[in-house]
C-alpha cells in the first residue's frame, strides 16, 4: 500500500485559493476512482473534486469553510501500489503524457450540477472485494506514451476481448498488465456500476450534405423560416370509413387493386377545399399575391431511398377512388426508382404527409411552400370513445393539419379541419354531390 495525495486542482484562471464547502467523504471511507470527494467554491463557481484513484481516505486537509490554496494537499488516501508520495505518481505522469483521464474541474464549465456519485456513506457498491482483496482499477500505471503498461500481445488480446486495459490492475513490475491479469479480470465479474464491457467509440463522421438532401434541407429551412405555422390536431373516428374501405377491398381488390386510406383523404380534401378555396392556394409572399387554384393537385410526401420527395397527384378533383389509388402507387414507385419526371414532382396546391403504420399520435407537418396548408395523417388505432353513454372500441385516427398563419386565420383553419373530420367520419357524404 502507498499513500496517494490529492492536491487542490487549479479551479480557474487566476484563482489562488478556494473555499472548502463540502466534504463528501471522511477518513476510513473506501472510495472509488471518480467518486466525488469534496466541493470547493471560488467567487466564480462551485467545483466538485473527484478522486483520481481508488483507495481508503486517511486524512483530510481542513474543515468546511477553510480556504485551501491551489496546489496544496487536500486529502491523503491509502492506495494499492506505491501511491504518489514520495516521488512521482503514475497519475501525475498521465497528466504529463496528456491523457485526458485526469479530472480537471477547471476546464470546461465548472459543474456544480454534475450529479454527485453516491457519497457520504461508503457506497455499497464501491470496492466489492474480489480477486482476493485487490480492488479493481487502482491508480493504473501509464507508460511513456500515456498507455496502460502492457506488452503488444496483451494489448491485442484485450482488444479482441473488448477489455479496456485502463480498467485492469497490473501485477507486473511498474504495474505492467500480464496475461494472468487479463485472466483474473475476465474471470471475475465486474462490480456493479463499474466499467461496462462495451468499448468507447470515439469515431466521428462528416457527411457532406449534397444533392437531394441539400435540396430538402433548403426547402425545409425556407418553409420554416418564412411561414408561421399553426397546427391543429383533431381526432377522427374512422370506424365507418374503415368498414367501407374493407368492404370495397373485399369486393373489388382483385380486379381494381387495394385501396389505402389515402384516396379517401384526398377525396375529403377535394370536397373541403371546394368550400374553402383559400386553402387550395399558393402564397407568393415576395409578390404579395395569393393564387387560388381550381384544380386540386395533391402532393404526397413520400420516403425514397434518397430522402423525402413529394410526387403530385394532378387533378385529384377529377379522380375516382381507384384511379387515385393507382396514381398514388405509380408515382410512389417512380419516386423511389428515381424515374419520376420534374412534372410529376412539382405543381402541387396542397399536400398530404403520412408516416403510414409508423405514424404517431400527432405530428407537426411543415408546409410545402408556397402552399398554405398540409394535412398530416397519423396512425389508425382502436381506442375507446364515449358514444351513446358508454365507451366503445372505435377505429380512431388523428389528423394534424398545418396552415400558413399569415394568410389563413385560426378560425378558417378550424373550419377546414372540422369539415375533414365530418367527411371522414361519415364517408358516404363525400360521394354525395353537393
Amino acid at each position: 500500500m502507498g499513500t496517494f495525495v490529492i492536491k487542490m486542482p487549479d479551479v480557474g484562471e487566476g484563482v489562488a485559493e478556494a473555499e472548502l464547502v463540502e466534504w463528501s467523504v471522511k477518513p476510513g471511507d473506501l472510495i472509488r476512482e471518480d467518486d466525488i470527494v469534496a466541493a470547493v467554491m471560488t467567487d466564480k463557481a462551485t467545483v466538485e473534486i473527484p478522486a483520481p484513484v481508488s483507495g481508503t481516505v486517511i486524512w483530510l486537509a481542513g474543515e468546511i469553510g477553510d480556504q485551501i490554496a491551489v496546489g496544496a494537499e487536500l486529502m491523503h488516501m491509502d492506495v494499492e501500489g506505491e501511491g504518489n508520495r514520495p516521488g512521482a505518481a503514475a497519475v501525475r505522469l498521465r497528466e504529463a503524457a496528456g491523457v485526458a483521464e485526469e479530472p480537471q474541474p477547471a476546464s470546461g464549465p465548472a459543474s456544480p450540477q454534475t450529479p454527485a456519485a453516491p457519497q457520504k456513506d461508503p457506497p455499497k457498491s464501491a470496492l466489492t472485494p474480489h480477486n482476493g482483496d485487490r480492488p479493481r482499477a487502482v491508480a493504473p500505471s501509464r507508460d511513456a506514451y500515456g498507455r496502460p503498461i502492457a506488452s503488444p500481445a496483451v494489448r491485442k488480446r484485450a482488444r479482441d476481448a473488448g477489455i479496456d486495459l485502463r480498467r485492469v490492475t497490473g501485477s507486473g513490475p511498474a504495474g505492467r498488465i500480464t496475461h494472468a491479469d487479463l485472466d483474473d479480470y475476465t474471470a471475475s465479474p465486474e462490480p456493479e456500476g463499474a466499467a461496462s464491457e462495451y468499448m468507447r467509440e470515439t469515431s466521428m463522421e462528416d457527411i457532406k450534405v449534397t444533392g437531394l438532401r441539400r435540396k430538402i434541407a433548403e426547402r425545409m429551412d425556407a418553409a420554416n423560416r418564412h411561414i408561421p405555422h399553426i397546427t391543429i390536431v383533431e381526432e377522427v373516428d374512422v370506424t365507418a370509413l374503415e368498414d367501407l374501405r374493407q368492404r370495397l377491398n373485399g369486393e373489388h381488390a382483385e380486379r381494381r387493386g387495394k385501396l389505402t386510406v389515402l384516396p379517401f383523404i384526398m377525396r375529403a380534401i377535394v370536397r373541403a377545399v371546394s368550400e374553402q378555396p383559400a386553402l387550395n392556394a399558393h402564397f407568393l409572399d415576395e409578390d404579395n399575391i395569393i393564387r387560388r387554384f381550381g384544380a386540386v393537385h395533391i402532393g404526397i410526401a413520400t420516403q425514397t431511398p434518397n430522402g423525402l420527395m413529394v410526387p403530385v397527384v394532378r387533378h385529384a378533383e377529377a379522380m375516382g377512388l381507384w384511379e387515385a389509388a393507382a396514381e398514388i402507387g405509380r408515382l410512389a414507385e417512380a419516386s423511389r426508382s428515381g424515374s419520376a419526371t420534374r412534372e410529376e414532382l412539382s405543381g402541387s396546391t396542397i399536400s398530404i404527409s403520412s408516416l403510414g403504420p409508423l405514424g404517431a399520435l400527432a405530428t407537426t407537418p411543415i408546409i410545402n411552400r408556397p402552399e398554405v396548408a398540409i394535412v398530416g395523417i397519423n396512425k389508425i388505432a382502436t381506442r375507446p370513445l364515449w358514444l351513446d353513454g358508454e365507451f366503445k372500441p372505435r377505429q380512431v385516427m388523428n389528423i394534424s393539419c398545418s396552415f400558413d398563419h399569415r394568410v389563413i386565420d385560426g378560425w378558417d383553419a378550424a373550419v377546414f379541419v372540422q369539415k375533414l373530420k365530418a367527411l371522414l367520419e361519415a364517408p358516404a357524404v363525400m360521394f354525395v354531390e353537393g
Partner: protein
Amino acid sequence: MEEIDCTVLVIGAGPGGYVCAIRAGQLGLDTVIVDAAYLGGTCLNIGCIPSKALIHAGNEFQKASAFSTDNALGIRTGEASIDLSATMKWKDAIVTRLTSGVGGLLKKAKVRHVAGRARFVDGKTVDVETADGIRRIRAGHVVIAAGSEPVELPQLPFGGKVISSAEALSLPEVPERLAVVGGGYIGLEIGTAYRKLGAQVTVIELGDRILPQYDAALTKPVADRLAGLGVEVLTGAGAEGLSQDGEKLRVRIGDELREIEADRILVTVGRRPVTTGWGLAELGLDMDGRFVRIDDRCRTSMRDVYAIGDVTGEPMLAHRAMAQGVLAAEVIAGGNRRWDHGAIPAVCFVDPEIVSVGLSPEEAKAPGIAADVAMFPFAANGRAMTEEDDAGFVRVVCRKSDGLLLGIQAVGNGVSELSAAFSLAMEMGATAEDVAATIHAHPTRGESFQEAALRVLGRGLHV
C-alpha cells in the same frame, strides 16, 4: 475506357502502401495497388536503401584509403581508388532486387498492380493514367499512401547543380566540392558518405547546431566525427541563392555574406507530404495542418477512404507507414484494430549512428514526471574498442517511482541494430530492473544497454 472493380485500392506503392496491399491480399480482399513511379516508393528507390548503400561504400572506401597509409592494425595496401559508376551499378542492383521482391510479394498475395498516376474522381473512383490510356478503378475502400517529397527552397530551386536527395544518390561521379544545405539527418548522411568518398563537403545549417531535433549530448559525437573527417559545418548560416554567374552558393552568416564554391548543391531542408496531383482538393478531406487528418484507425474524414504514411504526419518514417498499412488493411477487413503503438524508433545513419525511442531526458523534465537518467559510454565497452570506434554511449531515461523505461537513446556505430532491443523493451513496458537482470552477450555493444540500466539503479559494474 477499361474499368477495374476491387475491394481495396491502395494509391502509392511505398513501404506503407505495398505492406497494406500485401496484408489486404493475405486477408482475402480483392486488392489493387497503383503507383506512378515504381514499387517500393521513395524508401527503396531514392531514400533509405540507396542512401545506406552509399554510406556503406563510403565507409569501405575510407577504410581502404586508411590501409594505404600507416595504421594501428598494421595493414598495408596500395592506394585506394573508386569508380563511382560501378558503385552506383551495385547500388541499383540492390534496389532492383528489393523492388522486384516487392513485386513478387504482391503477386503472391494476389494483389493486382497498375502502373500510372492515380487521380480521384470521387471517394470510390480513381482514374489512372497508364501507358495504355486512362483506366478507371472503382473500389469499396481506398487507402491513400501518397508519401512525401523533398522541400524545395524558393531561392534554390532544384535543377542544374542544385539537387535533391534523389539525384544525390545517383551521381555519376564523386563531386569535387559538395555543399549541403540543411544539417538534418538526410543531408548529413549523404554529405558524410561523399566526404568519405573524397568530396570536399560544406554543411550549411540555419540552426545553431546540426540535428537540432536531438539533444546536444547525442549530437556531439557526430559533430566531432564531422570535424575529424574534415567536413566544414557552418551553423547559423542561411543559403541565399546562387551567385550572379550561377556557379557559387551565397550563404549569409550573421552579417557576413560568403560565396561557397560547389560543384553540387544538395538541398535537404525537410520533406513535405504529397498533397497535390491525386485529387485531394476534389475529395475535400479534413486536414491536420499540411497533413491528411486520420483517426486511430487510419480513417480520413471521408467514409471508406483511409490514409497512411507520410501524408498523415510526423514522424515521416517507413516503419510507421508499414505499421499503419497493416492496421488499415485489418480495419478494412473488419478487424477491431486501433493504432496503439507507442515506441517508434528513429535512427540516423550518420557517423556515428544515433537511435532514439521514447522520451528524451529533456522531455522527461516535464512537470509531473520524475525521471532518472544514466548513460554508459562505449569507451568502456570492449567490443567498441576492438572495432576501433568507441565514440558514443547508451542512455536510459527511467521513471523514478518504479523504474519504468520512459526513453532510450544511443549514439555510436552499430547502435542502429540495438534499436530492436530498445523498441522491444519500451513496447513491452520493461523496467530498468528487467534490462539489468537480462543476460546480455559479451562482448557486444548491447552490454552497454544493460550497464546503463544497472547505472540508473545505482549498480553499475564497469564504470
